[in-house]
């Protein structure tokens, strides 16, 4: 059975490069300053797993975790 993924943005590390929002708009939200947080509780809907890993591997601040549950 496929594992369920969750994404999480560390707000202390995020500097608002917004790469995650550009690459995986379904999984991330930006606040009024352009800083990112995970959408909802961060659960990655089936089919969007690649986008979660892509967002993580493009974050210049290494602020994104992808957690396998």
């Amino acid at each position, binding site marked *: 059975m496929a594992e369920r993924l969750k994404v999480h943005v560390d707000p202390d590390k995020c500097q*608002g490069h917004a790469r995650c929002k550009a690459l995986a708009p379904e999984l991330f939200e930006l606040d009024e300053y352009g800083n990112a947080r995970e959408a909802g509780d961060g659960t990655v809907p089936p089919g969007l797993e690649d986008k979660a890993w892509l967002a993580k591997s493009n974050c210049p601040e290494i602020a994104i975790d992808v957690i396998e549950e």
Partner: protein
Amino acid sequence: MSDVSQPVAHPPVTDWVNDFDHTDPQWTDDPFPIWDELRAASPVVHTERFLGCYMPTTYEAVREIANDTEHFSSRRIIVRDVRPEVARNAAPPITSDPPVHKPAKQLLLPPFTPDAMKKLEPRMRAICNELIDGFIADGKVDAAARYSKYIPVQAIAHMLGIPESDSDLFINWIHMILELGIKDENMLLQAVHEMSDYFRTHIEERKTKPTDDLISYLMNAKDKEGNPLEDSHVLGSLRLLLIAGIDTTWSAIGSSLWHLARTPADRERLIAEPGLIPVAVEELLRAYSPVTMAREVVKETTISGCPVKAGNMVLLSFPAANRDPKMFPEADKVVIDRRENRHAAFGLGIHRCVGSNLARMEMQVALEEWLKRIPDFRLDPAGTVTWSQGTVRGPRQLPFLLGKAM
């Protein structure tokens, strides 16, 4: 002021590892092999020039310094021959350290979010097409002078609410500050004064007739305590937006077009798959990052095992970090569809470029509109490509022939 000095010519560099100089013509022309040589020698190198200056050569060393605001101050952000007194409110937040930095930065962020940039996009597309209309029939163009230069100038003028027709004035100030100013203090001071006078006039006008633009936005902004910003803060931030918003993106768009002129395969791929353009923009930003920043060492420390001493400047080369093969496979090659790309073109840490979303939008639109109308172009063998010197690197002359080669 005793700090005002006459410009002094630099002797040519013969030993890059111990005597580097980012204003040397060899560096200006082709810095990439120099960075490789420095990186092979040490993660941090030093020069006695510029009154003492380090340069981190690896991505990791650049990241360490960018994230260490305790030992590295942003009060001086250009490596120059002189170290005049630091002005208060020089250009916040880029010249600010914690704890002053954060509120100054937060003030500038809302007008530059990706959503805010989407509203500006139609005007950007129109600007690009107006520029192309001006030369497409000629069959040739200096793409730096007639295209890449005016896109960011007109964008930031539009946002600030100042006349787009004053573009050449802004471009001249920026040249005086970022290039001539490295060696000529008078030139820098003159440009800063002229720029401040210019903005003072626009601020005065808005005191009686408020407008819906960034100048009025800053004039109405409040600090943490709810007080309006000091005039000097507003002026400093306006100077920053104008200086930082122009020749940076001018360079990025120019370098991108330079690459595409010389690489038909990448050009054809982007025309066939326009959806790939945002990915290509990231790779072009990595490979030809325009902006090198600086820090001043304020407390002795160690970076990647190398001791660094207070009183020295640091040439914080994001462009060199982005060519580190430990971080990027095939770092010296443009991989137009590179999927994993943690490049540092907009900096790392708290000083991440405020205008990164604007720059990305401008680059994407500039390349899309150009490729739609000019799918075939190449360097004009009768012309010469020249590159800017110093803090921001990009083509300043970019002679192209337009249309299919005969």
